[in-house]
């Protein structure tokens, strides 16, 4: 039951993009087409889950016993940067098909604040490893859900007549605002 609550809370109520403002850059940047949005979501799911597991282990078995929690930011960002690099190399070797689908998104993910954000939130919320993994997967699903929805809307905006000054980013932001408004209807669900 608690897993279901974590999932519903992360996907709908506290959606990582629309309610917590994490990962806005890729949300605005790569949401022009549904296929690219799906590719990005896949890459994010993969990296966030992996990063959360590794950073949780490092926090609990290295930082906490040594009493150096203040190094959390430096340690986590290094782990994530290294991990992204490693995933890229391994995918290239083992699964060229998957690599060609996700490859272009991987370098962008190091600076996606959703990855570092979820890793830090997992520690802040005092989750155990399994809760942390469920939390990470749920948040990536929330990210993908918002991204694909948004891409669908933007495909329609592209053929609409938008005032000159609002073209591009401004209209995208206003659209995101309305989408966030819709998501507010889920609050109180959990």
């Amino acid at each position, binding site marked *: 039951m608690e897993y279901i609550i974590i999932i519903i809370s992360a996907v709908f109520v506290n959606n990582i993009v*629309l*309610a*917590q*403002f*994490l*990962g*806005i*850059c890729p949300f*605005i940047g790569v949401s022009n087409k549904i296929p690219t949005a799906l590719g990005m979501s896949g890459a994010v799911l993969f990296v966030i889950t992996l990063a959360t597991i590794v950073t949780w282990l490092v926090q609990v078995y290295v930082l906490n016993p040594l009493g150096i929690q*203040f*190094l*959390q*930011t*430096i340690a*986590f*960002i*290094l782990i994530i*940067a*290294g991990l992204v690099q490693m995933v890229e190399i391994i995918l290239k070797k083992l699964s060229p098909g998957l690599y060609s689908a996700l490859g272009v998104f991987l370098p962008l993910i*190091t*600076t*996606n*604040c959703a*990855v*570092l*954000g979820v890793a*830090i*939130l997992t520690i*802040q919320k005092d989750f155990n490893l399994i809760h942390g993994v469920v939390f990470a997967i749920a948040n990536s699903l929330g990210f993908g859900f918002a991204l694909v929805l948004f891409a669908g809307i933007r495909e329609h905006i592209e053929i609409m007549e938008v005032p000159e*000054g*609002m073209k591009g*980013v*401004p*209209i*995208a*932001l*206003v659209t*995101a*605002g*309305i989408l*966030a*408004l819709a*998501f*507010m209807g889920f609050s109180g669900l959990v």
Partner: protein
Amino acid sequence: MNQIQNFTKGLLKENPILVQVLGTCPTLGVTTSAFNGLGMGLATTFVLTMSNIVISLVRDFIPDKVRIPAFIVIIASFVTVVELVMQGFLPALYEQLGLFIPLIVVNCIVLGRAEAFASKNKPFSSMIDGLGMGFGFALALTVLGSIREFLGSGAVFNVKIIPGDLMLVFILAPGAFIALGYLIAITRKLKDHI
């Protein structure tokens, strides 16, 4: 380019948020009030300026291939400094900004200036560039924070201007997106006239 131009370009012409649209996550996340926006802006200015200086100083010693990880470590160190100082001296603000303080590390503006400017220029110009970009970021955050705080609660910097609550939605998540969208559109219009 002289140093004055170098400083002022970040304020409007190349404003990191309103023109380049970088670092949107903290922009939307912390601007629930003018004070929070200003606090976040100044924290980022500090990180940006210090990391620009240090990166510029070591730019000749870092091999090209490992420069990005090296930059990230330098930036992360200054973020940790900000985190500890703020926790010690401004606990209320630290509580408010929460997760977004460690996330300065992945703010695209900081790494972007390191890569685009500090890794190619002398320390002094890099410092000016960092200050200019940082103040531009702080300015945009403060303006957005003031607009949201005013529309949401009728106050600016906690000073009540209109009694009672106005449109609460502007303090919540949707208002952040909508206010920033219109602010960018207005900036585009203004930029054409200057």
